[in-house]
């Protein structure tokens, strides 16, 4: 008698736990295949929340037809710290002008988050990313083309050629460009003077000679820190200006739109031999943190890096200069339209926001605050922006740059180039061996994609 009461009691406890654990959602059949009669994107009831919170906290998909509330446009982005602050203000101004609400959400793992959220109808209206993501996301269907509203003529008219080209893939326009990014020589004026850096931005031999002379004069210091050049670095992006600055097939980068690989060419071999000589007078191991710390405490004279490093250096009180050098990989940041924007009927608002954000006024304003390099031609050439030191200096570096391709084949290059560079610098392989292996590995990856 007594024990059966315990059984009932325990059953109740466990039943309650099960309810907590599975909530109301477990009743939905995950593998149901019959067409749903009613929309299933939104959980029918708010799920029970054990801790008291406002009911508005639950994510709710905006119903575009039930219009009395304000239209909400969600932007997923990777904008950071101080840079983001200025962007937030720009969108705030738009909200006030047009009476829409813009929700800015920063994402870490954009591709995984998209894979889960877009089919659920919880994806963003606008996706702010870099152009190398265009191809892959267009194939999956995470983003939709905006050719209907923004044509190539509009892009060519308003934006720098590299940025305009980066928006087009398979004959369609997939986004509106924001800013361009690439790397240049950022030097600590207390350690290195401008005249030590060769004036011709493709004078790689001159750069090597300068590094050797500097090392000889300062045995406890290094001339240049590049986080892509080190025995433990596998970073095809930061080492790109070295590979691209010896002429030849440089125009196409490492891999082109058709999946052809250009790693084992005479020019690349020349670059690899340069790496061998250079690494003798460079820090053996490098990384973002090491270069940053070394530049700040004066151990390293130059850091081959991009605009993102500037905020930290300013905060750390370093007196630095920026010199264009080599042919960097140019990334173009852009806004793309998420597939869910179409389901929500938000296309028009999305395109308007994209155009607003790419406009000369907005981009000039952002450049003034953030020191970015606007993709908008008028903004880039405006006297105010040219007066911003880092915008002008990085802008000069990008004019020599190679645009990153926007095809998915681009994924085939990073691993092999990074590994080959590490093997060259650490001495694990000779340059020709390393490049031949990299060529083979990249071609194999491309073949796997086709």
């Amino acid at each position, binding site marked *: 008698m007594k024990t059966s009461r315990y059984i009932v009691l*325990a059953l109740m406890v466990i039943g309650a736990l099960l309810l907590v*654990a599975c909530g109301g959602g477990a009743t939905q059949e995950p*593998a*149901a295949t019959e067409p749903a009669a009613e929309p299933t*994107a939104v959980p029918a009831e708010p799920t029970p929340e054990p801790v008291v919170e406002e009911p508005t906290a639950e994510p709710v998909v905006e119903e575009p037809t039930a219009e009395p509330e304000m239209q909400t446009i969600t932007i997923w982005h990777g904008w950071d710290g101080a840079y983001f602050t200025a962007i937030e203000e720009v969108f705030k101004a738009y909200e006030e002008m047009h009476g829409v609400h813009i929700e800015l959400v920063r994402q870490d793992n954009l591709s995984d988050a998209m894979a889960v959220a877009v089919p659920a109808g919880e994806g963003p209206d606008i996706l702010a990313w870099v152009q190398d993501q265009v191809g892959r996301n267009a194939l999956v*269907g995470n983003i939709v083309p905006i050719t209907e509203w923004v044509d190539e003529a509009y892009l060519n008219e308003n934006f720098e050629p590299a940025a305009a080209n980066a928006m087009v893939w398979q004959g369609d326009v997939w986004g509106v460009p924001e800013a361009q990014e690439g790397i240049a020589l950022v030097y600590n004026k207390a350690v290195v003077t401008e005249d030590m850096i060769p004036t011709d931005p493709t004078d790689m031999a001159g750069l090597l000679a300068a590094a050797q002379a500097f090392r000889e004069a300062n045995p406890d210091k290094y001339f240049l820190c590049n986080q892509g050049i080190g025995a433990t670095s*596998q970073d095809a992006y930061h080492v790109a200006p070295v590979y691209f600055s010896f002429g030849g097939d440089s125009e196409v980068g490492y891999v082109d739109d058709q999946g052809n690989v250009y790693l084992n060419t005479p020019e690349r071999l020349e670059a690899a031999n340069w790496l061998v000589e250079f690494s003798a007078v460079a820090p053996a191991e490098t990384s973002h943190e090491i270069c940053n710390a070394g530049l700040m405490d004066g151990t390293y004279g130059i850091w081959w890096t991009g605009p993102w490093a500037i905020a930290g250096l300013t905060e750390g009180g370093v007196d630095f200069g920026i010199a264009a050098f080599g042919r960097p990989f140019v990334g173009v940041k852009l806004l793309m339209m998420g597939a869910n924007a179409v389901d929500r009927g938000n296309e028009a608002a999305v395109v308007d926001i994209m155009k607003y954000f790419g406009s000369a006024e907005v981009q000039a304003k952002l450049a003034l605050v953030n020191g970015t390099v606007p993709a908008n031609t008028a903004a880039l050439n405006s006297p105010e922006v040219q007066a911003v030191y880092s915008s002008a200096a990085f802008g000069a570096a990008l004019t020599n740059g190679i645009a990153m391709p926007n095809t998915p084949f681009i994924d085939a290059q990073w*691993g092999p180039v990074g590994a080959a560079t590490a093997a060259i610098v650490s001495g694990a392989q000779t340059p020709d061996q390393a490049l031949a292996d990299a060529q083979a590995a990249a071609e194999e990856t491309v073949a796997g*994609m086709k």
Partner: protein
Amino acid sequence: MGVSYRGFRKYLLILLFITPTILSVSALSVYPIAYNVYASFTNRNTFRPRANCEGEAVQGEAPPAWQTWLTQRMEPTCWATFAENRVVGRGQFYRLTESLGENYADMTGSLFSRESLTSTGLLLVGVSPLLAVWYVRRRQSKLLSPPRNGWLWLVALAVSYGLWQVLDVQAALTRLQETGDFFIVLFRTILYVAACIPLFFVVGLTLALILNNEHIKGRGFWRAILIIPWAVQSYIAALVWQFFFRGEQGTINQFLEALGLFEQGPTWLGDPERPYLAFVAVVVINLWMTYPFFTVVILGALQSISQDQYEAAEVDGATWWDKLTQITLPLLRPAVLPAVVLSSITTFQMFNTVWLVTQGGPIKGAGQPGFTEFVMLHAYRLFQDQNFGRMGAFAVIIFVMLFLATLFSLRLTRITKGAYE
């Protein structure tokens, strides 16, 4: 058992106790595993990301009905819940591969060819004397007075060495390495697990034994301090440790150089001539992250050992070593084995920490696995081309191997047995 319940009521009781676990574990785990198995038979990749939910014809040829049936159930984007927002991209439909095991064959290379199976056989024969001795001693340890025959190990070692030479096991090993990256990566991963787990256990046991000694002052303080690494996010900790092991700038080398031990310390993480240095580094880092867990588990387990048993042993004149090996270790076994087995699995599947610290390096060159490229890092590198079919096959292979190894270790340790048997 001695409980008064029989039949129906007993089973009701058991059901009551275990149903919640079964439900929550299987609901969320079985489907992802099934999905992976399904994906491992498809040719899905970046250019073929779409699920053919409606069985549409591709190049005038519709997939068989059973394939569509399968796709509709396995592929989440085909589920009714997601129908409304189904995305349609520029990509092609994926389908099942031409030959069923295509992705599996791609992953294993020639590991299962006759030649490499022979080599594996030779390898097993080479170590068989050691296994035999181990088995015999294990059987004997159940006797009331086990004979002292540690010298058997020496004999086995000698026989093993002899076999090694006669059968030319070295050559077999080389042949196996030539079967492809998979074997090399697997071998190094096993080595990593074999280096990590005993170290975790020894460090955890040492600290737990000291912290369990009631004559140590401020045990609460020591316990709380030593647990700290468990509470810190591994992401940033891994990068801090990476810096400690830097050759030129790192703390360890600078410290050693300041003490005058080295002129210039080793390049721990990037020396292709001495790759074991990077191996040591990732073992030490993993130790830092995991020893608190072992300490806590062992400390908890020590509580179930009664002091009386030690006191009785002391009366018999037992040394501390006797007490450790005859009382502590055997009694710890059931409570510590789960931690050992499960952290062997997690170490085998280690990705984040090693990736952040070495990225698989020291690098030998493009297309070859780096020296610390363990299975999950290898997987990551392989799937930069987003080949989901091969990714699935890889996951299934790892799963089957790990599971067999675990089953084998369970048979040996008998931890699935209940307390009443």
